């Protein structure tokens, strides 16, 4: 029987969980989240600076490049608490951009960019295209070598925080093979970005027209490692998505519990009724299971084979748990749940976003069948 993962929790994870729990609750009350939803940038630059000062962007970056030299699994408790408080900002996209450089960047790119990311310079990935395929190797954008530089063509979509990012790492075809290219935002004209209308209003995403953008030849990430890097990013993005989702699931359940304990109908709090109580318990149990999978995936992430199984299991479970908890959160808030003012919709929208990014439960189950059977 193959190893499909196990629980593990490091001292660093414990410390980060404790500090992130307090910090995120403090800086991201839901009123602040709602205010930022209508803000152009979509996040609070002061909070972003604080996150940088706390060293959280440096967690999974090697010490040689100004990082703390910990693992991606150590980032998980931080992202979980950000998800719980719907904390907006480019934390995950910057962490993933660093992962792209660690896994597939050239020595020069790592030396130049990783210390910046560790210190709080925002960055992002541009991996998806028109059909929004979850297979990251389904690429049509191209890079072509010209006189001393590279010319890009094509369009990437759902590029998170592209306006705030200083660096964008895009997937393109190079000599008909998948490749990654590091784009300095100064070479991207404002007109190349279109802000997209997305389901999760706490985030910012853009389509990025690559046509006409030129970058130096040195901007290409190591072509020999491009496929492996894309595979790594697929799992890394899903791991961090699971963390956000578990945090969001917890919050959706907590909101529902508060309401069920205080909303009176027919003379009793609605949480008294088993028709309400039992599905909340079902959502809670599902949440605890998803969270157990999350920390198994975090612990086993770097283990060849097991890491992939554990991450796909965690995403399949997080999708089911978050979708169910947020769906029931709307229902159990009754008429209020149908309004924009009720926070239940924030979680339901976010669950849809995460299912659409990196694959939903059905997608990961199919992959798991291939890995397990």
């Amino acid at each position, binding site marked *: 029987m193959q190893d499909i993962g196990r629980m593990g929790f490091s001292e660093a994870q414990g410390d980060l969980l404790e500090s992130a729990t307090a910090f995120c609750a403090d800086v991201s009350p839901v009123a602040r989240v709602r205010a930022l939803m209508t803000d152009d940038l979509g996040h609070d630059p002061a909070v972003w600076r604080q996150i940088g000062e706390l060293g959280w962007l440096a967690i999974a970056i090697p010490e040689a490049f100004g990082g703390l030299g910990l693992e991606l699994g150590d980032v998980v408790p931080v992202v979980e608490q950000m998800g719980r408080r719907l904390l907006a900002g480019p934390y995950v996209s910057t962490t993933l951009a660093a992962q792209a450089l660690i896994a597939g960047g050239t020595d020069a790119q790592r030396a130049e960019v990783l210390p910046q990311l560790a210190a709080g310079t925002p960055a992002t990935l541009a991996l998806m295209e028109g059909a929004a395929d979850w297979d990251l190797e389904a690429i049509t954008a191209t890079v072509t070598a010209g006189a001393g530089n590279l010319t890009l063509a094509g369009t990437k979509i759902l590029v998170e925080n592209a306006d705030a990012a200083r660096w964008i790492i895009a997937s393109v075809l190079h000599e008909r093979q998948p490749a990654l290219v590091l784009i300095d935002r100064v070479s991207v004209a404002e007109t190349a970005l279109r802000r997209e209308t997305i389901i999760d209003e706490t985030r910012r995403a853009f389509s990025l027209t690559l046509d006409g953008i030129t970058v130096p030849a040195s901007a290409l990430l190591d072509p020999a490692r491009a496929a492996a890097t894309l595979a790594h990013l697929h799992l890394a993005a899903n791991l961090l998505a699971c963390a956000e989702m578990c945090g969001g699931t917890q919050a959706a359940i907590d909101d529902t519990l508060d309401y069920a304990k205080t909303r009176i109908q027919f003379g009793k709090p609605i949480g008294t009724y088993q028709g309400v109580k039992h599905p909340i318990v079902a959502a809670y149990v599902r949440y605890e299971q998803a969270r157990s999978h999350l920390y198994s995936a975090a612990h086993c992430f770097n283990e060849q084979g097991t890491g992939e199984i554990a991450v796909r299991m965690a995403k399949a479970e997080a999708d089911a748990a978050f979708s169910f908890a947020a769906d029931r959160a709307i229902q159990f808030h009754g008429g209020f749940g149908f309004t924009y003012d009720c926070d239940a919709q924030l979680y339901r929208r976010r669950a849809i976003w995460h299912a659409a990014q990196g694959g939903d439960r059905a997608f990961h189950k199919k992959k798991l*069948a291939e890995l397990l059977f």
Partner: protein
Amino acid sequence: MTAPDPKDLAEYAADADAWFLANVNSDPGFMLPLTFMEVGTDRQFDFLREWQARVHAAGYLGAAWPKEYGGRGLHPDFQAAATAAMRKHNGPIMLNAIGLNWTGPLLLDIGTEDHKQRYLKRILSAEDIWCQGFSEPEHGSDLGNAQTRAVRDGEAYIVNGSKIWTTLGHYADYMILLCRTDPASTRKYDGLSFILTPMKIPGVTTTPIRKLTGEHGFTQTFFADARVPADGLMGKEGEGWKVAMRTLEYERGARGGQAGGYVQTPTNAWAVLDLARRMQRGGKPALDDPDIRSQMVDFILEIQSLELCRQRIAVPALNTDHPAGLPLSSKLMTTEFVRRINEFAITLTGGQGAYYAGDPNAVDYGFWTRAYLNAFSATIGGGTTQIQHNIVGEHVLGLPKG
């Protein structure tokens, strides 16, 4: 207790591994029960009693109980290592479940010296079999409503009434009895007492109950003016509910003190995967069917959920918001999973799902249909799934009582 020397622990674990490898007999030539609730025949009972006695004599049961009461006085990690070895070699279950997991820890906590001397060693050696008398015919999950009466008469209680679902009742030497000593108390929980009751005394009789599988395994127990020695009272008169709830905490593993081993064999989802490979659909393995494949992944995800949640109980930092959440929901999660995966297994056997245990054409001797039907003992017994939802909702999530 100080942490064990890793060298001693490793040596003990290696000895246990070798002992179980040499001594486990999981196929005595008749079907063994999967849980202590399924012991239906004398030969099953005799086999399991002898097995438990041997495990204890070898030092692999009750290893963390004090030496003077039949244990070995070791750190709990030693017993955990022995239990792991037992599991690894598929050792049959420990028979004396109520004694090992309920009575024993309770006596160690609040029993008198006399109780400990009299009962503990004989629990480990299976010389005394214990049963539990909580449920009553009219009050299934509503334990607090017990009506079996106990009236003090000198050095004894005169007991009248009836208990149901007494596992091993026919064989048991003692019962932990929840009974009503004060029918006048205003709160129903206040009038209850918890008494260690001998079973083989005048006025106590048992009638076997035939289960939905056609087998026996439980009794109904009747008390008719039974004189039960009053020195079996645990806690004070009227504190029975508190004591009973304490035993449930041992049973759910929320409190230490259990003797070790296991009293039920976990359903193995991987065995169902193997079944999905062996069974056919249209001349191909059933596992090639996309719908079956998808369901199979669901079940493997779920069994891994249960395993990871079990492991996570040991990580306090990941249990801060609802410290009792995982222990109190584990019965709900596990019992429903077992019921559903066995139901799925029956569907995998296709047309042969029509056979029952005993027919030569039945897949795996009819194991899966029998296991499915027996699975209801756990989704109903010990508080139904519906009551478990209330327990988690009210005691973990703080929702108001109905």
